[in-house]
């Protein structure tokens, strides 16, 4: 009897403790891939490399998800509803620019971290490059070229905004002390140029249809042109060393001399075509449906949008010359009629701006109070009586299944011509090649503006080039950074911002009066704001080694 009892007890003990399986807690799924596996497989390695592209800055309306472009910080436009990501740039509280987290690609904190993340990918790929058992299918040379190009591009995005930054020349371990000082602008530029030197021989001139959008030789040359132009500009070349301008001009010339690219005859659809002889490199993206960018940002509520917050300024509109005379409207001989302000203007005005009575989507824009596209003191409508035509392709209508392309263009040929003109004018003055470059743009078939008058001084030519650049590249993510490198913010941005008052008269005619925009749309630009502050938290993290830009 006793022994039976003990058997029972033993059994109970057994089910108690024998069920303690050692691996009961090992529930983690087996790890998919290790780093070794990635670089031991040429396909995976090439996929690792492709991720580098994802770190480029590749959208215009990228602030606070889709609610701001850099042009609104500059003089191109204002934000109608006080969008925080713009407001922080226009009132000089740049430290707050990245205050809203989440899905955003803001211009200071996010660009900083995104660029270094991309640099890490390229560094890692380049370090492992030679260990991968490549087959020819993967085109390792091209991959290597892409890595150099992307790394150069990311460093450029950094120095464009912050000046010299720490150079991450290899992949760091997480427990390493990486509290490094900033390299100088020149040191960073040297890295960029050296990377481009390595990239150019490795990159093809073009790709087959399924690889269109990858870095090309032309893209590398275009980046070199842009990087050298920035390096030669006043912000980075206080002494105005002419050799820097010469180098910039030469870089642009080198690309022009490839004779691969040419201007597209039409201007109005410059962002809306799948391919173009003018495109050097674009972000490849399918046709867009009506998304947040259009609905909540670009489109007039009267035409189906929810919030029309991208509101070009009168300041910008005034930059467009008269079509017939080729003169600025401020010139009394230009032929400008303030009561017919949009008549006989540079055709690019109609390409870039939606103004009152402009034909649009089968109707006309109604910018007077009570018109479909404007309501007084209503922040969902334009604050300036303008919307941006360039950022609002015509096929989009609310609740109509329309899609259209709206490409982010990294480089197009017109920029190179403008780069050349600007650099050459600074290096040697307004020679014939400067005229040729500018006039080529003005002569675009659908623009057909008169050629620049002969005999301009270097200063006059500089002004015309800057104006041409503002008009031609409007809303394409150039103006703000141009103003920074020119150190022209106090003269251009910290000026009164105007909109237009449109009154519809009883007889159907309109009365136009430029009006000063309210206080919250006026902008602050102090003399230290030519560079962004290094993200403040990065400074806090550093033990005094990473130094902030002056003024911040």
């Amino acid at each position: 009897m006793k022994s039976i009892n003990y058997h029972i007890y033993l059994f109970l003990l057994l089910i108690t403790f024998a069920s303690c399986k050692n691996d009961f807690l090992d529930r983690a799924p087996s790890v998919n891939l290790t780093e070794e596996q990635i670089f031991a497989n040429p396909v995976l390695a090439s996929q690792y490399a492709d991720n580098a592209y994802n770190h480029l800055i590749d959208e215009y309306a990228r602030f606070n998800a889709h609610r701001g472009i850099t042009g609104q910080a500059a003089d191109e436009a204002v934000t109608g509803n006080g969008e925080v990501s713009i407001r922080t740039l226009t009132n000089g509280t740049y430290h707050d620019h990245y205050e809203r987290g989440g899905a955003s690609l803001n211009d200071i904190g996010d660009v900083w971290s995104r660029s270094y993340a991309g640099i890490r990918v390229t560094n890692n790929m380049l370090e492992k490059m030679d260990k991968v058992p490549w087959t020819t299918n993967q085109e390792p040379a091209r991959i290597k070229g892409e890595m150099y190009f992307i790394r150069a591009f990311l460093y450029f995005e950094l120095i464009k905004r912050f000046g010299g930054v720490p150079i991450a020349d290899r992949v760091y371990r997480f427990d390493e002390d990486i509290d490094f000082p900033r390299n100088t602008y020149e040191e960073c530029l040297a890295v960029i140029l050296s990377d481009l030197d390595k990239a150019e021989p490795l990159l093809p001139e073009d790709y087959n249809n399924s690889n269109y959008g990858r870095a090309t030789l032309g893209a590398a040359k275009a980046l070199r042109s842009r990087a050298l132009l920035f390096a030669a500009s006043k912000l980075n070349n206080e002494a105005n060393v002419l050799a820097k301008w010469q180098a910039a001009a030469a870089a642009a010339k080198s690309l022009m001399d490839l004779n691969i690219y040419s201007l597209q005859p039409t201007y109005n659809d410059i962002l809306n075509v799948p391919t173009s002889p003018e495109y050097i490199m674009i972000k490849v993206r399918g046709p867009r449906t009506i998304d947040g960018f259009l609905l909540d940002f670009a489109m007039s509520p009267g035409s189906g949008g929810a919030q029309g917050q991208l509101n070009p300024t009168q300041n910008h509109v005034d930059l467009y010359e008269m079509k017939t005379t080729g003169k600025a409207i401020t010139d009394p001989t230009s032929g400008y009629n303030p009561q017919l302000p949009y008549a006989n203007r540079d055709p690019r005005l109609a390409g870039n701006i939606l103004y009152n009575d402009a034909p649009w989507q089968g109707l006309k824009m109604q910018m007077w109070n009570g018109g479909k596209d404007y309501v007084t003191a209503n922040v969902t409508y334009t604050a300036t009586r303008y919307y941006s035509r360039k950022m609002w392709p015509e096929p989009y209508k609310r609740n109509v299944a329309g899609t259209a392309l709206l490409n982010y263009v990294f480089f197009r040929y017109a920029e190179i011509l403008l780069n050349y003109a600007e650099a050459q004018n600074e290096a040697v003055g307004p020679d014939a090649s400067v005229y040729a470059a500018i006039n080529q743009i003005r002569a675009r078939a659908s623009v057909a503006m008169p050629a620049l008058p002969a005999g301009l001084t270097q200063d006059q030519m500089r002004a015309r080039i800057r104006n041409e650049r503002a008009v031609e590249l409007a809303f394409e993510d150039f103006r703000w950074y141009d103003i920074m490198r020119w150190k022209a913010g106090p003269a251009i941005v910290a000026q009164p911002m105007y909109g237009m008052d449109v009154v519809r008269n009883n007889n159907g005619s309109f009365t136009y009066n430029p009006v000063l925009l309210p206080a919250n749309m006026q902008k602050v630009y102090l003399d230290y704001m030519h560079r962004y502050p290094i993200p403040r938290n990065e400074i806090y993290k550093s033990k005094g080694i990473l130094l902030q830009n002056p003024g911040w």
Partner: protein
Amino acid sequence: MYPHKILLIMKLTIFLLIIAALQVSAAGYGQKINLSERNAPLEKIFREIKKQSGYRFFYEDALLQQAKKVDINVRNASIEEVLDLCLSYQNLAYAIVDKTIAIKRKDELLYTTSVPAPMPQIEVTGIITSSDGKPLVGVSVTVKGQAGGTYTGENGRFSINVPVGSILSFSYVGYDVKNLTVKNAGDVNIVLEQMNTSLTDVVVIGYGTQKKATITGSLSTVTGKEILKSPSSNISNSLVGRLTGLSAVQRSGQPGNNEALINIRGSATYNNNAAIVIVDGVERSSFGDIDPNEIETITVLKDAASTAVFGIKGANGVIVITTKTGREGKPRISYSGNVSMQSYTGIPKAMSAYDNAFYINEANRNDALPETWGQDELQKFKDGSDPLGYPDINWFDYITRKSYPQTQHNINVSGGTKVVKYFASVGYLFEDGIFKEFESPYGFRTTPSYSRYNFRSNVDFNLSKNLQVGVRLGGKLGKRYQPAGLQSGSGSFSYDNIEAMISRVLQTPSFAYPVMLPDGRIAQNPNVGTNIWNPLAVITRWGTREDESNTLESTFNLNYKLDGITKGLSFKTVLGYDSYFSSTTRRNATWAAYVVDRVTKNVTLSPDRPRDEPLSGLITSTGGLINSNLQTGFNYDRTFNEHNVTGLVLFTRQLIKQPGSGFAASPRASQGVVMRTAYNYKKRYFAEFNAAYNGSEQFAPGNQYGFFPAVSAGWTLSNEKFLKDIPWLSNLKIRGSYGLVGNDKIGGGLFYFLENYSVITGGLSTDPVYSRPNTGVQFGLPNSIVNYQVAAQTTFGNPAITWESGTKRNIGVEGSFFKNALSFTFDLFDEKRVDILTTRQSGLQTYGQAYPVLNIGEVYNKGYEIELNFQHRTGPVNYGLVTQVSFARNKIISRDEPLGRPEYLKQEGKPVGQFFGYLTDGFYTSQADIDASPVNMLGKPIPGDLKYKDYDGNGLIDANDIAPIGYSRTPEYIFSFAPSVSYKGVSFSMLFQGVTNVSSDVILSEQNNGQQMYEFQKERWTPETAATATWPALHSKGNPYISYRLNDFILQDASYLKIRNAELSWNIPQVWLSKTKISGLRVFISGQNLHTWTKYKMYLDPENINLSNTDFSKQSIYPTARVYNFGVNIQL
């Protein structure tokens, strides 16, 4: 039947009776007996005597078996004569007491010579009720100094035969024992007083129960009866103010989604601070949806001693729920029904159209913008002469209703025998919602609602002397309904829930448009603002959402006594198996809306709602969980003289399977060993050791298990000789605990120890469209793009990841005085939580990818709890007052913040959830004041804007001037006082409850899409009202950025004091029911959230906040219900 019963009682009480009986001098009783028997056994003689005289016999069977047979022949003899004849030559004596004859061996007489005079035996009957007049069934009635006794049956009735002068003792779980000296036969009515925190109570602890007197840890308990006082649909809302150390914040009032945010002793971590929930011994996901009628007790385990047994899961405290079991006795059927009317506790008071338009003009003027409304238009708003063009609609009033019903029914039956005890319950709840019932063209209901069916069946078997088995099944079917809009792809900005519906109502201004055109078409006007959709259309024409959840929780218990091995040892096993299933079904439609021109009355189609579309098909998603749980081990409980030893060793294992993909598909698992050993000497000195060695799947193999020990001790001073004789001191005890507990819910994700590379395909995002690192990348022609997958590191593991561990200390004093009339408990605690999983904040981003998470966070938490309980009775009046205060304050010690960050901007050194904002210094009084003040970089201020302090003193107002302001959303002080009074069957109780040291950042202002303003904004600053203004100057929309940046003016003090609960009940007197089958009937009226006193400005309940749709304004909340309830409780 009667003799048997009496014999039974006799056997049990024989010794005393015999002693008593044999002292009786056998005087003649005058009964005449006729008998003629030969060789008859004594039993037969006795039977005959009983037949003729009615006298009963008491004896031991064995006694008569040994007796000789009898020859007798008598006529008209007295009983004494007969007995003398029968017994004289036997070794037997007799005694007659009150018609009872006791037979005893003669020689035992020797022992009884000094016993006092015996009393005659009488039948005592009566009814036992509780102080509120309710009959108590199953009360044990015993005779002092004897074994055995009886129980009250239905109606609380009992009957027992005892000698005069004996002492009857009435005892019932949860009630004070009452003694009664029997003086004469007949009815006595006994009222038992409910004990408060009686020391003989058994309380539920982790993995078992323990006598309250021997507890050395810190815990607090509330009974199901208390919970039933609150007519809330979710019992998590019934706990507030009733348990020290527990904070329950009712965030929302949405039917079926109003569970309180609960935490225990504040928070000692900035990660997951949720307590674990144990229902009937098994960890379960939640408890709010249990029918309150099923609940026996809810206990909150707070300190290390009481939570150490939960080891790696116990650090945030434990909520232990026990459901009811049956008691021995006939089936008792109980029905309770409640009918309630609900109303909202607060709704924003929107300005009328005229006021709103008037103030919008003022706001425009302030910002140098043209006025929106002309004088003629204002006049039309004012006189209502043009309701089509210039309407005035208070949309909240239009859409919501003032009262909406709730009903709750429960029927349960319980009872049992010695072998089986059962409790079975079925409950139904229906809670209706705040929106009116409008007619929807698509035929759906516009009122949100919740219905819930609960059932429970708890059966316990005593299969043998040693083996007990229990089966507990609890189920729930819940169905939550709401009118709802489209589910959005981009996360929280989704219209498929009630907060989103309310946000649409809240933002539509009173001047927007009429509800409908005269012909019934839906009016709308996109000019009013972004997404200002017609609220009527929103709730009648946008669609529905239905969330169903089915729960089945089963628990199997087995207890086997192993006294055969050693006395006091038993084997125990608990198996829990739960399945949860949930589904969400959506249907969506849309509507055509029409814009009516304010002036011309021309009607055009609204561009953002161009057409009607009927309800879509069902869009369904489902989810579920399977949770299995096993505990098995040994219990030990034995007393050696004055030494009492208990022990527990238990193996535990849990596996939670959930659907999902990737990491999320992995089951969650934990297992380990639990141990407890407790010792006390003379119930004066207590020592206890609790520990768990357990682990979780969250950590890398080799790092999975941790050991969590706790020691505790207690000293009951009142049991010491030197205090024993103080008459007013009933109990005084000091106790303390110290130990280590863990928390494995370290973050939102799983497997932080893993490092992984993945191949990622997706990546065609539409909004925002810019490329995301670690998603697919696109090349090819834009009209025929090719998506290239990328390979990337997707997790950045740290193999050394471990659990949070908390070192908890607790010191408690508890005492009671004046026979427990006054009692108190005081607990002082602190905790240092270390190894909190922390995302690196100090790592430079030039590293280029996410840093692995680290266990480097530290939080210190401390506080105290006081409970005072006073109960007194004078005559038929009972009154009492329970007062509780809980305080907890924490401080982040370390969160890996960048070293160079200025101290005042750091979270370190401040509580978890501390609000940060600008400090204000009144309003700018004039332009001169603005000019003389530090430059405001946030915008261009106007007089009447809030003036911020230049905290860092650099002459600029900018983001560096943000400093800690107010508190956090979790209150630091929670207090309550609950007076109660009862007179005979009528009782009245109230619960006042409040919190303080709490802030709310909910703000109502003109800065919503429709620029709807609120009544309090009339007190805004203007040059004329500068002296009395209580709100900053108004601004046009898009100009919010000075005054409405979070600051110490906008941040609201969310302290409050509420009449959380009140109940008046009446037990219908028993005599009225005596002719019915009803044994008890109680009717009551009660209320929840009856009144709130608060300084909080935003009209709403200060507890409410919208946390579910963070992209909508925080005030888009469903207000908490105020509940007026009528209820009835019937016992059969």
